[in-house]
């Protein structure tokens, strides 16, 4: 490489001179412990059932083995009540996946593929039952009008469904009054709204006002990223600032257990059970 100031080493030669530990440290590699099989993880051991066929169903979900889940569930349904198969087998498998994901030993793709496998099993159980199994509760999800970004909403919907919630997905570019109508119609235990822009997030306070007029009070999990931040979300009623998509089912569980939206705001880190930078001042 030549430059006006005289000859200089090429970037490759320069790179060899550099001790990069002074420049950056890949802490993900530093803190990565030894590889262990998912089923040997101490938390997973506490979650996985010991009784068969529940154990092997849960393991198939843990390994995202969709074919295996379908075979084992069909087998189990011959003599076991579908609801038990879901609660003691499929559900336990998903709980194990969530435990590993919380510790970053499993990753989003693993969660998604395990969720696909679990849903396949649930479908078979529901066919056996002849009707949909009772869901923990209903959640209405939407993306604010005029905002094209919906990957956040899709992740929230997936995590909720994977954790036993029925989700009414209104999609993108949803006018405020359609959200109100859906709340009145489905009487959800929680609503999730996503937006990413300073001028579309203004839908949230508008919806809160409409809810007040209609006398509706349900926690709204206002999640964003981008322009939607906690100080904005807490500047109007009913709303709780959602930081990560995988927090949604935990908040839904707490809402189900009777926590008000005001309580959810102050107990967020405890409810989701992990450090959350945006709630660092309420870790107490």
């Amino acid at each position, binding site marked *: 490489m030549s430059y006006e100031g005289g000859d200089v080493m090429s970037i490759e030669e320069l790179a060899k001179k550099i001790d990069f530990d002074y420049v950056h440290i890949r802490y993900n590699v530093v803190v990565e412990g030894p590889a262990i099989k998912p089923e040997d993880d101490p938390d997973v051991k506490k979650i996985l059932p010991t009784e068969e066929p529940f154990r092997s169903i849960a393991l198939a979900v843990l390994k995202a083995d969709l074919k295996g889940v379908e075979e084992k569930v069909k087998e189990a349904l011959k003599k076991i009540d579908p609801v038990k198969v879901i609660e003691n087998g499929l559900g336990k498998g998903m709980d194990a996946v969530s435990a590993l994901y919380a510790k970053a030993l499993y*990753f989003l793709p693993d969660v998604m593929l395990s969720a696909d496998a679990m849903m396949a099993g649930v479908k078979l159980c529901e066919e056996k039952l002849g009707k949909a199994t009772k869901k923990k509760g209903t959640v209405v999800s939407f993306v604010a009008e005029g905002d094209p970004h919906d990957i956040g909403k899709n992740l929230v919907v997936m995590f909720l469904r994977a954790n036993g919630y029925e989700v009414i997905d209104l999609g993108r570019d949803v006018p405020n009054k359609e959200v109100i109508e859906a709340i009145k119609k489905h009487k959800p235990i929680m609503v999730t709204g996503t937006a990413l822009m*300073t001028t579309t997030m203004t839908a949230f306070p508008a919806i809160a006002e409409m809810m007040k007029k209609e006398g509706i009070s349900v926690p709204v999990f206002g999640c964003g990223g981008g322009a939607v931040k906690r100080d904005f979300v807490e500047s109007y009623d009913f709303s709780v600032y959602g930081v990560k998509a995988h927090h949604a089912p935990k908040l839904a569980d707490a809402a189900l257990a009777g926590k008000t939206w005001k309580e959810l705001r102050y107990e967020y880190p405890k409810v989701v059970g992990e450090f959350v930078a945006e709630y660092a001042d309420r870790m107490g």
Partner: protein
Amino acid sequence: MRRYTKLAYKDPDEILFGHAKFPVQEHFGIVFGAGFVVPEVKVAPAPGTEKDKESLVREMASIAEQAASRAVDIGLPAFMLEQEHVFQQTYYPDWAYDCTHAQLEVLEKYYKEYGVRIALRQTVADIRVEEKGGLRGSEYDNRIAETIERCCEAGASDIAAETMGGKSVIDYGVMRGDIKALLFGEYLAHIDMEYFWTRAVNICRKYDTRPAGDTHCSGANTAMFVAGGLMGKDMSHTGAALVRAMSAARSLVAVECGATGPLKDCGYENTIIKFITGVPIAQEGKDAVCAHSDIMGNLVCQAVDVWSNESVFHREEMGGPTPAVWLQATGYEAALMNTAIQAGYAKVLRDLYALTDMYRDPQALILAYPNAFRIAKAIVEYGKDPYLRSRAAALEAAKIIKEAYEAKRIALTRFELDSLNKFVSILESLPMEADKFVDECLREYKGKIPTFDPKSYEL
């Protein structure tokens, strides 16, 4: 529609910030890529100012005034103001006209009084909703075309966009770490880009407004954000690196349709496109911290022509209003680069910028200019085939990462390494004919992705 089958640069060492093979002139005496770096500032309108046209026009003029007055107060020779349209600015073409006109009035006042060289970029919003009326011919689609025309009429220096073609399939691929869906999404994006930019270029050419270009913010940046920092657990950084490589093939289409650059700031893939086309490029990095994090804050300066802060709330810091504060930040970084150019040390600073992040993360590694050159070459080898060139870009990126890993220049976690190997084996097992690949994907994904509308891509 021109396809690139060879690179604009013969040697990676030729590329350099502030220099493009084909500099771009815009009015108010500004030229991009002609031997100096121009700083850019972009600020999101305050929540609520979108309630009516007058309020948004006042907000736009206030952003322009706050930026321009700081530029002269600290001695910046030139700057670009970019306005990323909010929904209303594109949905109502006359809002776009009035906002653009109001900003130009302010900027022209400073150009005349101080001689500071200025450009105004209008970035139309891609308000199309694939699952509601499709990407072609919907009311939303037509308004975009009208708004581009109105911005040209009002005198915008250039028009940019961040189109969303292929987004539904790419989002599916990002969430599942499904490289086949990601490649299919990039292929779909090529098709929509050609539709969007052929039209945009034709409109701009009727005016003294440059068709600037596009970025894969809705694909590669989504992957980057989901991948997050080193401790992220949602998408592997090796996967995000492959998506970034493929996005260069997709964003190239704007230039193939006649866009002149400077390509838009969110395109971390722009160094690759600059190797192919020689057009000037905007970039964002360590001065975009208020908009989003990234893991290559310095490296993106290596070949930049317009250095941007990406975005920030319009509000006040202790140091002044954010348009002033952030033009000062990008202005001072551009000043450092311009000093290096003048002093004859630009290539040294370029290498320091690149080396600072090159082994911080696989996403930075593949964009370091010697590697970006290799990916650019892989793309032009299949220049005429959007499918094969995207696939080739991903495979070359994977090769670059594997080589560095094996040479112990970069350490990877099991998640990063396992997903890399899985992606490579899937990519290598795919058919070499585009239509075979497309049929396979339509069968596999059409049912699973409700918002995907094949008709929008003429499939």
